[in-house]
């Protein structure tokens, strides 16, 4: 009697164990399958520009003229690559100091107000749809730049500013976590030697949390790099390398969103857009890789 109860119990455990295991395996399998098929799809489409349409990769990466429907068609993607990198890096340059200062404020200076008001407000920024950012950028930032600087106001500067607001929550949240996780003993040790609060921030807090801060910045750049809609609304979308921050430009994402509706699957133009997508995807992998590397370093 007792033994049969035990056996029943054990078999129930076994079923639960197996259901859980099989379910998890299926989910993981699906996930891996999705990722691989996406990468495969983008890569096969993107690479056919080189293999099927005979475009020289060097021309694509260094060419400055993008005229896929021209005679002969030209596929110089450098303006987009330059545009993507410069808007994202500009965004990081603006957002990184702001995000770090916000984090210092939240953790060090006014924890009560910071945690209750400032942090939720900044995190709210992450939830605002990008079309709203684009719209605000177009109605506020672009006219503002148009008034002070020569040109139409559309361009890298407007794109960078809009993106910087969008990536501020990422950078701030990661910086806040890093500052909060700093062992209290380190700061006390510094104060006990007669250091002021700002000396402690510059000499102990900043260097110790640097890898984590960089992680936040790289994640921010990755997000900015992939953002399409908001950038497209304020950057002007001229496919050339601008000579000033206030001149109309283009990014990889804006080039794709603008033209994808007007091309036919399988044509050279369509494949060329896939190549741009492949560049975006590859860069994302590079960013993830950098973040991993930084995280490993921050543990030492």
């Amino acid at each position, binding site marked *: 009697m007792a033994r049969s109860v035990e056996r029943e119990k054990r078999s129930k455990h076994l079923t639960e164990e197996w259901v859980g295991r099989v379910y998890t395996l299926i989910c993981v399998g699906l996930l891996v399958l999705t990722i691989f098929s996406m990468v495969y799809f983008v890569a096969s489409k993107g690479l056919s520009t080189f293999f099927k349409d005979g475009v020289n990769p060097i021309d694509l990466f260094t060419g400055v003229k993008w005229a896929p429907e021209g005679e002969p068609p030209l596929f110089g993607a450098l303006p987009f690559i330059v545009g993507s990198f410069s808007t994202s890096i500009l965004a990081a340059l603006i957002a990184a100091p702001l995000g770090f200062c916000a984090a210092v404020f939240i953790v060090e200076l006014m924890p009560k107000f910071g945690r209750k008001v400032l942090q939720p407000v900044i995190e709210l920024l992450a939830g605002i749809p990008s079309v709203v950012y684009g719209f605000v950028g177009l109605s506020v930032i672009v006219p503002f730049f148009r008034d002070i600087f020569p040109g139409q106001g559309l361009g890298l500067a407007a794109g960078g500013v809009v993106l910087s607001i969008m990536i501020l929550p990422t950078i701030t949240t990661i910086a806040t976590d890093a500052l909060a996780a700093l062992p209290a*003993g380190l700061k006390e*040790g510094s104060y006990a*030697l007669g*250091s002021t609060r700002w000396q402690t921030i510059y*000499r102990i807090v900043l260097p110790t949390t640097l890898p984590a801060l960089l992680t936040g910045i790289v994640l921010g750049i990755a997000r900015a790099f992939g953002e399409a809609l908001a950038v497209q609304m304020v950057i002007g979308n001229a496919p050339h390398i601008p000579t000033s921050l206030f001149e109309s430009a283009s990014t990889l994402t804006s080039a794709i969103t603008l033209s994808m509706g007007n091309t036919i699957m399988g044509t050279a133009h369509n494949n060329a857009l896939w190549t741009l997508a492949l560049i975006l995807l590859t860069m994302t992998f590079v960013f993830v890789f950098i973040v991993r590397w930084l995280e490993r370093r921050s543990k030492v």
Partner: protein
Amino acid sequence: MQVLIDIKNLDLYYGEFHALKKVSMSIPEKAITAFIGPSGCGKSTLLRTLNRMNDMIPGTRIEGSIRVGDTDIYGSDVDVETLRKKVGMVFQQPNPFPKSIYDNVAYGPRLHGITKKHELDEIVEKSLRSAALWDEVKDHLKRSALSISGGQQQRLCIARALAVNPDVLLMDEATSALDPISTLKIEELAQELKDRYTIVMVTHNMHQAARVSNQTVFFLNGEVIEYADTEKLFSNPTDQRTEDYISGRFG
């Protein structure tokens, strides 16, 4: 012996909580004073008032006065950074900065404006020698301070504190995270340092207090119960509660 620190009618409140009650005592110069007492009786709290580390805890309120030398350290014209330079502190957990051994010791002098390399070199060597660590680390000053043992780290923290040339060294259970051999080293070090510095140490270890200190202060529930030469306090305490504590009957 000359009195260096003079505490008069000190009351300290953490918000509503009355942590130190009418504490009065004087701490002699160039000697070791030990604070003993059961957990939570306010030893660390009193120690931290001496370099005003409690200032950073919100809701802390203080009444009464503390003089170090001839400054009232809670006076309105006192510069906290200068005070902390004069009154150094070593913590329970070794807390070296994640920098090189050299940069740890040079941290304080650099803060206070010394930038010339040869001056820093000299201070680093002198401080590490004073902390009895020089021979062990002189060949790898550029190594990370986190790579040396806990006992070495604690002596590094002592060297770091000595590098800004303090008068007083506060040690809050500085050996409680260490093995017996490292503990012994730090006790010997304290004995050497007391010729040049005034040392105040909190300890849970009554043998340590008896071995190392010249004066001992016994605390209970935020009050000073007894304060005397170490030998007298341990051999012939006047208060019954002191006797109960040192004979291990409570706490």
